[in-house]
């Protein structure tokens, strides 16, 4: 492992060469918005919110999967990046059926927070109003696909941490949806251990606990850090485990 220096938003920082730009930025309180990333899970680079500019390239790079290099000059808050981030949230808002006022995680929702953060007040694209399925067959939890942003955190936590791989993705493109086992009611899933990790890592109100009322539920993802740290040897974890 080598130590190197790089510049992020004009600040000179030191880092290890196996660290990602996102890790380095967060260590130094440089805020980069993320949605699919969650500490303790593998990174898939799918939400595209953490894209940053690197001097010398026209392309944008996802901070969560790009490793630091000596002398790298990174910018995380240019106008171009901010505009793209706002549009990504705008696209998400138009894609699902996100009705905050009646949502269990209202005021504790990562999507909602991101919308505030990027200054999204309305969307310029027509709402797609998809017909999505809600599944309340599990005794303790509910999945409401209307509020799903397809970040696949639930897929990854179930596969990588719990080792059950209940969740996966079916269909493609705009028709993608999260399914349990062989696309059967969650309550009938033989592989689900009812551990509830998927519910806790879900950034929105798509996976919720039964019995919570509007704006009552707060999700805690800290547990992941402890589980992952507790595992001394991590080699057996298949970090390529999305889907």
């Amino acid at each position, binding site marked *: 492992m080598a130590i190197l220096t790089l510049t992020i938003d004009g600040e000179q920082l030191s880092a290890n060469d196996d660290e990602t730009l996102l890790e380095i930025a967060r260590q130094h309180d440089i805020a980069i918005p993320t949605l699919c990333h969650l500490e303790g899970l593998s990174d898939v680079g799918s939400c595209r919110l953490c*894209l940053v500019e690197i001097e010398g390239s026209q392309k944008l790079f996802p901070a969560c999967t790009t490793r630091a290099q000596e002398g790298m000059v990174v910018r995380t808050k240019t106008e171009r990046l901010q505009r793209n981030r706002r549009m*990504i949230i705008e696209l998400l808002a138009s*894609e699902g059926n996100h009705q905050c006022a009646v949502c269990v995680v209202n005021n504790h929702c990562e999507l909602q927070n991101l919308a505030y953060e990027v200054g999204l007040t309305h969307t310029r694209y027509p709402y797609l109003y998809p017909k999505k399925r809600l599944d309340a067959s599990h005794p303790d939890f509910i999945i409401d696909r209307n509020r799903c942003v*397809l970040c696949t955190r639930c897929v990854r936590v179930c596969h990588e941490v719990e080792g059950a791989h209940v969740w996966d993705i079916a269909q*493609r*493109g*705009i028709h993608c949806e999260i399914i349990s086992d062989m696309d059967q009611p969650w309550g009938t899933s033989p592989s689900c251990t009812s551990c509830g990790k998927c519910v806790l890592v879900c950034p929105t109100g798509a996976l919720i606990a039964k019995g919570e009322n509007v704006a009552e539920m707060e999700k805690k993802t800290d547990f992941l850090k402890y589980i992952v740290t507790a595992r001394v040897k991590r080699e057996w974890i298949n970090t390529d485990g999305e*889907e």
Partner: protein
Amino acid sequence: MTTEDLHELAEKETDRQRQLRDRILYCAAAGCVSCGSHATRDAIKKALKERNLEKEVEVLGTGCMGLCGEGPLVKISSDGSVYERVDEETGRRIVEEHLCEGRKVGAHLIDTSQPFFSSQQKIVLEHCGKINAESIDEYIAAGGYGALARVVTEMQPQDVIEEIRKSGLRGRGGAGYPTGLKWGIVRKAKSEQKYAVCNADEGDPGAFMDRSVLEGDPHRILEGMAIAGYAVGANQGYIYIRAEYPLAIERLKLAIKQAERLGLLGNRIFESDFNFRIDLRIGAGAFVCGEETALLRSIQGRRGRPRPRPPYPSEVGLWGMPTLINNVETYANVAPIINRGSAWFAGIGTPKSTGTKVFALAGAIRNTGLIEVPMGIPLRNIIFDIGGGTPEGTEFKAAQTGGPSGGCIPAEHLDLPVDYESLATVGSIMGSGGLIVMDSTSNMVEVAKYFMDFCMDESCGKCIPCRVGTVHIYGLLDTISRGKGTTDDLALLEELCVMVKETSLCGLGQSASNPVLSTLKFFRHEYTDLLSKPESFVPSVSPDPASAGPADGPAANDGHDSTTHA
């Protein structure tokens, strides 16, 4: 199998062919088969039998002969005559008149001196239309597997890579990455196990180059892959081919079996310690599986979704091992480079884009079919000389290269040389070789809509810009094409296209907006003509009602659309 055995086989087959009185070649590629070349073959065979010629005259199915629009095609080996639209009756007449009486069947004879034939230079397609696509003996008689023999018995892996590097060969899948460089990276990667993969998931609408090569000359690909395997240190190859190509799959299966039987694939190839096996993997119909990281996942039996690069497959590929991925056409160029040397190959084309490129001509063009031309040839020559121009009474409008990832090239850029760099300067790409010609009847907004519909449907749904962005781009195009769009919609469309291009995860999303952006660049008026005209603004309290006419209403439209208010 030794090199001597190979020569012996070649001689035996050449002798056999020499003893025949003549050979009738019919095109057995998917295009001609679909317009009835099997029935033609049966009619020819029947006619031969009636005249007791079936022992002296061989009838064989070859790969694509090129002029797909005029099929079924039949060629007489002895004098090189090619016949078009050969139905059963014509087939019978060819046997009767051409073979027996020496009189050519004029009405169906193709003039092989026309530019379609004379302006081409065939390297990748050199065997297509000349040898039996299902016979390994004929491939060996044409010099096949000679390059593999030489590589395995005489050359060091490093020398093979150096030879490919010097040839200047670049990836024919579209991006044009230097092949020798890629091989060198995989060679240098440290691993016990490496793989060589052939990307035959050709999915661009209107493109059928890879299919034709696989159907017409499958052994060429196997030989190229084995040479690549030797060079990079892989002992297992996979051909990832789409299920929509059943004929190519059938021929590849047969070819692999034939090569294994002769010891040209398998263990101890040419009695060296080099082992190489090739297996087929059939795609399930997703366009995105042509993207290399999605393709690798699909081979592993997982959902075909791309992942961010780096790490590139040359370092972390199949099951985490270094993996070489090349396109069909790239592998098809390998054996000729080894046989004739890198200097010969580098002398063809332009200094930066060497060799030839196969194109599939489709759309509003007289000669629809498969062609191979040296790189750097002007687009005009491809379309007007080789392609014969647009059908009578219509005018050339644009050529579309690179499928849903490419762009339209308008008439003013017809003299553009066709190579990787030049095409990029006008916002298109070389792509895998699909070339769709559009004439004055084409509506460019509809063209952009068609490709966006394709991308929307094929998006895997992993990243947000591609999953949702393509849906909204399609929606905006639809609104505009129905005459309901406004200038705001057009601005929104452009902004969204740029955003999807900048932020998408893989090549599919990053290039999905190219057809829209390039038609906007060259045919913007077709979009603006469709925009709905806002009602003339008439001030509600006018000092003089008579002056609120359209002629001088600057307040009405701030200088925008000032010509549209009639």
